[in-house]
């Protein structure tokens, strides 16, 4: 680092950049805050004239404040600094705008889903339910079983492929597999579902619905995620460790099993957990391969099963005669899905924290 280096993200909003700019005046550090406070007051006044609600208030404040700050800076500091301030406002505004969907989505799902987050939801199915009550017992277990099957199929294939790519792979086969894993990452989930349906329809005839078909469809989506993350992690294992092991006369496969994998275990665990989080909420492939049922079916090799996302979809779109109860169940199912996904994300973080190799990098 040379003495002239500036930090990549200067904390001060008005860091002096060049002497050329200092010839002009500079706005004091409190200026942006003051301008936006003024804009807020103006926004309230404008709101009183038309309609005052939080959305228009924030909108007016941001727009007015941005323009006012730009104008002030242009007069005091010159065009270049004014543009800089304008872009800062736009970037901040864009980030704020991005938070709106996240916050409103979480708020809405919790608000509507909390009503039915009770014991009945977890311990009863929909058999004989025409209105109030009923739950997603069958769907929760369906999701757990199908996800479990998917893990059993995808994790060995994914990890072994990653090991092949990092430890053994050479030449064209490696290139082809890397390329196709990339391509597989982009397969639309509904196409994966159609593939599994077409595969199973070949053996069991048209119209087949089966938990295993759903697991195969989800595996098509999960395997590339596992391969990619495992590959990245295995590449991080230092070559020196492998070479030290070879120097002691340890065969290559034992080096991989005893040295490489234990070193990378935290990253592998994190990658697998995040891959599970990605597929547990998939709806489209299950919709076309597993279907839906009101009864509890815990056998993935025979007939339709209920799964949480598909359950939520049908409860919302085909709620039946008194619709409000089914719609409540749909929102609770969505809430449970979000909780599951968030929990898996947290678990992934914990794995990477607690199982990380002791040495550090």
């Amino acid at each position: 680092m040379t003495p002239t280096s500036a930090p990549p993200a200067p904390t001060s909003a008005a860091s002096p950049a060049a002497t050329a700019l200092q010839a002009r005046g500079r706005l004091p550090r409190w200026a942006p805050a003051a301008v936006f406070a003024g804009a807020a007051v103006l926004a309230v006044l404008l709101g009183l004239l038309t309609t005052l609600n939080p959305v228009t208030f924030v909108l007016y404040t941001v727009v007015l404040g941005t323009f006012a700050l730009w104008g002030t800076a242009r007069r005091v500091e010159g065009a270049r600094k004014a543009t800089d301030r304008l872009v800062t406002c736009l970037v901040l505004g864009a980030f704020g705008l991005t938070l709106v969907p996240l916050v409103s989505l979480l708020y809405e799902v919790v608000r509507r889903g909390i009503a039915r987050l009770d014991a009945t939801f977890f311990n009863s199915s929909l058999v004989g339910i025409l209105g109030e009550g009923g739950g997603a017992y069958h769907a929760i277990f369906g999701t757990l079983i199908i996800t479990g099957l998917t893990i059993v199929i995808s994790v060995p294939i994914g990890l072994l492929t990653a090991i092949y790519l990092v430890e053994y792979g050479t030449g064209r086969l490696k290139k082809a597999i890397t390329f196709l894993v990339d391509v597989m990452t982009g397969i639309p989930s509904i196409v994966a579902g159609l593939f599994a349906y077409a595969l199973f329809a070949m053996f069991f005839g048209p119209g087949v619905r089966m938990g295993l078909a759903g697991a195969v469809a989800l595996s098509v989506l999960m395997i590339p995620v596992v391969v990619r993350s495992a590959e990245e992690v295995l590449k991080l294992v230092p070559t020196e460790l492998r070479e030290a092991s070879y120097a002691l006369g340890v065969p290559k496969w034992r080096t991989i099993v005893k040295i490489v994998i234990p070193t990378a275990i935290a990253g592998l665990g994190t990658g697998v957990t995040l891959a599970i989080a990605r597929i547990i909420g998939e709806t489209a492939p299950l919709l076309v391969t597993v279907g839906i049922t009101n009864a509890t079916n815990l056998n993935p090799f025979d007939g339709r099963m209920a799964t949480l996302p598909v359950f939520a979809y049908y409860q919302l779109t085909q709620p039946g005669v008194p619709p409000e109860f089914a719609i409540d169940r749909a929102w609770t199912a969505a809430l449970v899905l979000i909780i599951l996904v968030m929990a898996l994300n947290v678990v992934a973080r914990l794995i990477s924290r607690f199982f990380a190799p002791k040495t550090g990098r």
Partner: protein
Amino acid sequence: MTTTSPTDSPRQGAVRRLGDRVFSGTSRGAGILILLILAGVAVFLVVQAVPAVTADPQAIDGGRGLLGYVAPLLFGTVLAAVLALLIATPLAVAVALFVTHYASRRLAQGLGYVVDLLAAIPSIVYGFWGIAWLAPRLTPFYGWLEQYLGFLPFFAGPASATGRTMLTVGLVLAVMILPIISAIAREVFLQVPALHREAALALGATRWEMIRIAVLPYGRSGIIGGAMLGLGRALGETLAVAIVLSVSGGISFNLISSSNPSTIAANIALQFPESSGLKINTLVASGLALFIVTLAVNVLARAVVNRRAEFSGARS
């Protein structure tokens, strides 16, 4: 690896080779299995789609042949995805810039995680949010668009009363692909050589000028690649579209009315459970079209991203 040095005892060498052979064979087999799966996806889709291709055009749903059935769906798919891309890309780049160049370093990590949370939320929940939260809030805005911008074909109206329009779908899809684009843009922006940025700052550039002359040119291919990956995701998105969009078929550029073309993926999700016979073949054929389009987009995106990686010597 197969040839052992002459000093090695032959017996040990043989044992070593057996374990190695089994292990490398299994892992190579897993890799080849992936090739087979992808080939299987293509083959099984083609096999199931063939009856729809060879069938009498009158027998296809709608009576105008396979092409007449798929064309409006393909149009809807591309329209929704392009709309999402136009909305999401500038926002995603701004978010990536904020996280890498504006927020303080400690804040940046947490904020990056928050944006990643958007990517973790299941797509069906976005559908719920789109129809229950977003759509009703957009209806007054659509009325306004129709009133003042109605002379544009996009906003010709009549404005939908429910808000279940193509523009709403575009917004929902934009929210879904934003984290993908911004994650890749973020990664590229972090790889911009510190010397480039410092040189710009040392010449007296403001922060925005530094970003414009050092960061954005360096990250351009990353942004393009990320945007195309996002496009691939938006093209294939199913349930969010199926729940939110009010469908009537036909090709229309009108973004705010309640009669919209469906998308391929949403159409499959809506029709498949009640279909049988030739109708299933037709749906699979439309799925094949979607597969080919997303495949092309993704291959192109990967090529763009990887070319940058080779050029800069950075790990992708």
